[in-house]
């Protein structure tokens, strides 16, 4: 079994339902996110549009975070999920430096690394991840990539524009996007302009270690 995710960006309307559901389900502390929906505004007024991209851990087949973790706190489980054992983590931030997608954060409460686990605990009880359940337009499709009859496999077969983030990194993500442009997937394809963010003053909770 190889679990994977696909987000159909044609359907996503940026409501952030998945983001909130994830926060609640996994008790993600303030100022940290396992899943977040990125907004990028494209074009010049009046020809503007807003794009929405849910970003989470890609559960890479060749995961740099798993490789660099000195204590195997990050590890694969049988269904292909890259899981994390926060009791084992020493907080070296190696995984934060290795993940090319910025998917890992240091939890300010436990001082350990954390990230999206595809809700491994729910999956173990045959439930869908919280974000899948919360999405009002069923833009998040979750299932077994090794089963050709699963929803996700059929979606991949039926669509031509199936993409992953940063394929050049050789991580082989198990997280796909349909209907994405470079603006959605490539951080260098958009600018971050001071004062243009909808949240301008984000307070990060203090962390251990030294961040200067």
């Amino acid at each position: 079994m190889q679990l994977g995710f696909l987000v159909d960006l044609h359907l996503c309307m940026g409501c952030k339902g998945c983001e909130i559901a994830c926060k609640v389900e996994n008790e993600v502390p303030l100022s940290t996110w396992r899943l977040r929906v990125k907004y990028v505004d494209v074009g010049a007024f009046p020809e503007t549009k807003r794009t929405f991209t849910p970003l989470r851990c890609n559960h890479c087949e060749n995961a740099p975070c798993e490789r660099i973790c000195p204590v195997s706190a990050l590890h694969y489980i049988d269904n292909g999920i890259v899981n994390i054992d926060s009791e084992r983590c020493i907080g070296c931030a190696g995984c934060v430096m290795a993940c090319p997608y910025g998917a890992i954060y240091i939890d300010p409460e436990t001082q350990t690394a954390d990230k999206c686990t595809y809700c491994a605990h729910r999956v173990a009880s045959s439930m869908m991840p919280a974000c899948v359940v919360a999405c009002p337009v069923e833009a998040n499709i979750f299932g077994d990539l090794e089963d050709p009859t699963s929803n996700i496999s059929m979606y991949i077969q039926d669509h031509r524009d199936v993409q992953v983030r940063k394929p050049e990194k050789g991580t082989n993500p198990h997280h796909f996007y349909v209907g994405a442009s470079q603006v959605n997937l490539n951080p260098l394809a958009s600018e971050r302009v001071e004062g243009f963010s909808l949240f301008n003053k984000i307070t990060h909770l203090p962390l251990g270690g030294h961040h200067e």
Partner: protein
Amino acid sequence: MIHESIAATQAVVTLDVPLPDIFWGWFVTMNMWAKSIGTGLVFMLFLLMKKNPDEMKGLRTPTLIVSFIMMNVFLLFTLADLHQPFRMWHIFFYPHWTSAITVGAWMATVFVGLESLMIVVMLRKDKCLLTKNSTGFFDKLLFWVTLLAIPVTLYTAGIMAEATARELWQMSTESVQMILAATLSGSAAMILLGGSKLSDKTRQFFGAILGLSALMAFIIYMSEYIFGGMKSEEVIAILSNIKGDGDYATMFWIGQWVAYILPMLLVALARVSNSSNLLNLASMLAIVGLWVIKHVWLVIPQLLSLS
């Protein structure tokens, strides 16, 4: 080049909260800097043994003690940078061998253990139970410790290479830079430590190592600076922080001047004028400048948003 399409799309991020930028900060700089001096001194002591063993007299123990102190500074800052320092023992009880962090931690521990043994052997000379010929034993161990110092110096480059998100750091260049940092700071520390115990000829020999290390490291940095961006858009974005009015441009050039350019010039002048003071000044500048340049190179890839 995808970045060039921004003019057409005018794409601006209006909602995203990337990770707070710098995760490996100056504690990790201290780690790399102290380790360079620690292993570099061992390399230099070994060279001295091969070149002129008579001059090792009175230098074996002090050199090893300074190296040992620097290695402990390195370990201390490594530990202090962990978010869960009291779980450090996990590295020894749950080691994950694909991780350069694990391999490095084990090697560094063995290295420091061997250094302690060498120091004890020298300090307890007559009362040593291990050997009667403590100097001979020390010199034999020095060979193995020097061999071990090579991977201990290199493994940080392995960690940087495993940091897939940071395109700037490539194993080949970083490993050469690690060795050069060790020979640069090691020779500089040896010149300062050896003082009058070293003959003029030997000091000039270490001066030559210092000057050549500075030259080669400088060439590599300049190559990255000029050509680095020609094959990767991420590297262009990262290097923009040290070009033009980039936030780290001044610090980068201070580092290049203090660590490499000035020591190179001073070493050349010291050779011509046979001046000890110029060589000492070159050594001090190299040691200080190395910290600055290591810090800049550590921080700039972390300024790039990954999402």
